């Protein structure tokens, strides 16, 4: 009951937490500024982030309308500001230029974007640049598989250890001839896979970030600890190695046939459990959780989520191993000891998993609709769906199989536990994908305030605001193109003339500096501007700030989707 209260307290606490801002590397300033027209060609392009990004992992390309590269060197950290990357460029002639940048956040996530600038005074009309594909993640299939294997193996090894030393231990005393050797061997196999998968993941991740081959060990290994993310996962490897060492000693010293544990066995088990707890804290410490305010809560929720997930998946695989390894004559008796004990632990684990998952989602998502509008939110829904299916199977075990375990029901148990283990492994795959996606930026909260959603393709939309009727036109509504933006304002059917209209652009899929343009009145009540403002494929918040002559100003927000 106390445990249930604690879980409820954690869930309630999570619900009360303020909506947080996730903190990937955000571009806060560029020189030249986005969409500006300069009269003198710049010698460098400088990008200032909100954190010190690693220049060795950064790419900055500056291209003209014919896609010729104008950058003459690789990005360097500015001596004046460690948060600024500077790239030298050729002496460029008049015309339009596209800057594409990619950097690695301290939490290991790539962030990227594009913007244009022009060198005048005769820069000409903005050309149609090829819209770069801006992906939500730089995750490749091998990287995702390595990440999944790493989580699956480390969590399973820890869960199997807990099952062996805490849950299944009495089996040896209560059932004649029963042994836990198979569970220990399964723990060994999972540990070996984890010990290989963690460095393989760090190597592959560093290879992708620094654009090198996986096999360039000489160049990549010194870079492993360059980012906070890399340091975190190398530390995870060290902690997991320490856990495996301590756990092997603990299993060697434990004599399950004796009820009382020796002092040596208790000390070794305590050491292994502390190392396991440390291992499971590191993904949160070096990932999204530590970059998301409130950090303390976020890291604790992530840790509890992984601890409960480990007990669940390790226990399920352990039960399957027990089912297969126990002699047929002792299977029912053996499972009658192990299954009820595991069910109690699994029930608490699942409740904690559910509460911490809900809490973390509340912290990471700026709005509820981000759940179905962003890839991050959709992955949470898929993961939740898989876990709910696993819980439904677990409920069958708890309510139908566990109360009257006999020969026929142990066969049902094998099927249900296998299904549950496959589903939980699938949920861990979804979690591996989830943690490789960037959570929606705080700007996404603007999405919920939108009066109308438009695009892709040419836009003709109407909005009623403060007694005015606004007609919004965007053509051709393409990314990295010169789009024409028009706003026709009427009140009572008559055009509203002489108003001041400012249009600001906020990228909603990724945090980047907003751009602002003043719209000119080109005919009575019609305010227009042609600008290459939609510099990326994705969702844009178009905020029209209208100040009618002598009237109270108001704002209308349109969420637009621009394709390349």
């Amino acid at each position, binding site marked *: 009951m106390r445990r249930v209260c604690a879980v409820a307290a954690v869930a309630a606490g999570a619900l009360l937490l303020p909506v947080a801002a996730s903190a990937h590397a955000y571009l806060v300033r560029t020189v030249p500024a986005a969409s500006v027209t300069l009269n003198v060609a710049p010698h460098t392009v400088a990008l200032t982030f909100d954190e010190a990004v690693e220049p060795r992992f950064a790419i900055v390309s500056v291209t003209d309308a014919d896609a010729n590269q104008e950058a003459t060197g690789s990005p360097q950290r500015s001596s004046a500001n460690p948060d600024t990357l500077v790239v030298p460029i050729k002496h460029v002639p008049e015309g339009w230029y596209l800057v594409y940048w990619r950097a690695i956040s301290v939490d290991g996530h790539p962030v990227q974007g594009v913007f244009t600038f022009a060198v005048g005074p005769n820069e000409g009309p903005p050309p149609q640049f090829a819209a770069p594909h801006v992906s939500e993640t730089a995750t490749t299939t091998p990287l995702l598989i390595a990440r999944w294997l790493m989580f699956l193996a480390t969590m399973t090894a820890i869960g199997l250890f807990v099952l062996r030393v805490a849950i299944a231990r009495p089996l040896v005393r209560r059932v004649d001839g029963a042994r836990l050797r198979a569970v220990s061997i399964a723990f060994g196999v999972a540990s070996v896979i984890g010990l290989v998968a963690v460095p393989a993941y760090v190597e592959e991740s560093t290879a992708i970030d620094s654009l090198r081959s996986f096999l360039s060990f000489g160049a990549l290994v010194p870079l492993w600890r360059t980012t906070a993310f890399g340091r*975190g996962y190398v*530390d995870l490897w060290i*902690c997991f190695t*320490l856990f495996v060492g*301590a756990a092997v000693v603990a299993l060697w010293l434990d004599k399950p046939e004796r009820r009382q544990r020796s*002092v040596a066995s208790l*000390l070794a088990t305590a050491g292994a459990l502390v*190392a396991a707890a440390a291992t499971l804290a590191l993904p949160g410490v070096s990932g999204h959780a530590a970059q998301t305010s409130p950090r303390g809560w976020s890291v604790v929720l992530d840790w509890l989520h992984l601890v409960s997930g480990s007990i669940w998946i390790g226990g399920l695989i352990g039960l399957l191993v027990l089912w297969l390894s126990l002699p047929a004559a002792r299977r029912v008796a053996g499972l009658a000891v192990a299954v009820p004990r595991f069910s109690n632990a699994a029930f608490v684990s699942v409740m904690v998993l559910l509460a911490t998952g809900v809490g973390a989602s509340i912290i990471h998502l700026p709005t509820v609709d981000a759940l179905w509008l962003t890839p991050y939110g959709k992955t949470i829904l898929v993961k939740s769906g898989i876990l709910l299916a696993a819980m439904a199977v677990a409920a069958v075990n708890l309510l139908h199989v566990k109360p009257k375990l006999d020969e026929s029901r142990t066969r049902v148990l094998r099927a249900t536990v296998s299904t549950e283990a496959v589903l939980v492994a699938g949920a861990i795959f979804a979690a591996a994908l989830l943690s490789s996606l960037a959570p929606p930026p705080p700007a996404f909260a603007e999405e919920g305030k939108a009066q109308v959603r438009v695009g892709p393709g040419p836009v003709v939309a109407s909005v009623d605001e403060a007694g005015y009727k606004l007609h919004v036109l965007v053509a051709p509504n393409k990314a990295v193109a010169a789009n024409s933006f028009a706003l026709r304002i009427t009140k009572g059917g008559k055009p509203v003339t002489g108003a001041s209209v400012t249009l600001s652009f906020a990228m909603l899929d990724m945090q980047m500096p907003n751009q602002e343009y003043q719209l000119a009145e080109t005919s009575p009540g019609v305010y227009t501007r042609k600008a290459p403002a939609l510099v990326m494929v994705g969702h844009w918040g178009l905020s029209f700030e209208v100040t009618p002559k002598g009237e109270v100003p108001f704002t209308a927000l349109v969420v637009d989707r621009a394709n390349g």
Partner: protein
Amino acid sequence: MSVYVRLVASFVALGAGCAAAVIVIDQLRRIFA
């Protein structure tokens, strides 16, 4: 097997746990610094 060997092994395992805890505390210190 000697009880001393067991005790030494158990302290090594406990030490491994403490070392892992120190690593995490160091990481947490960096975050909250």
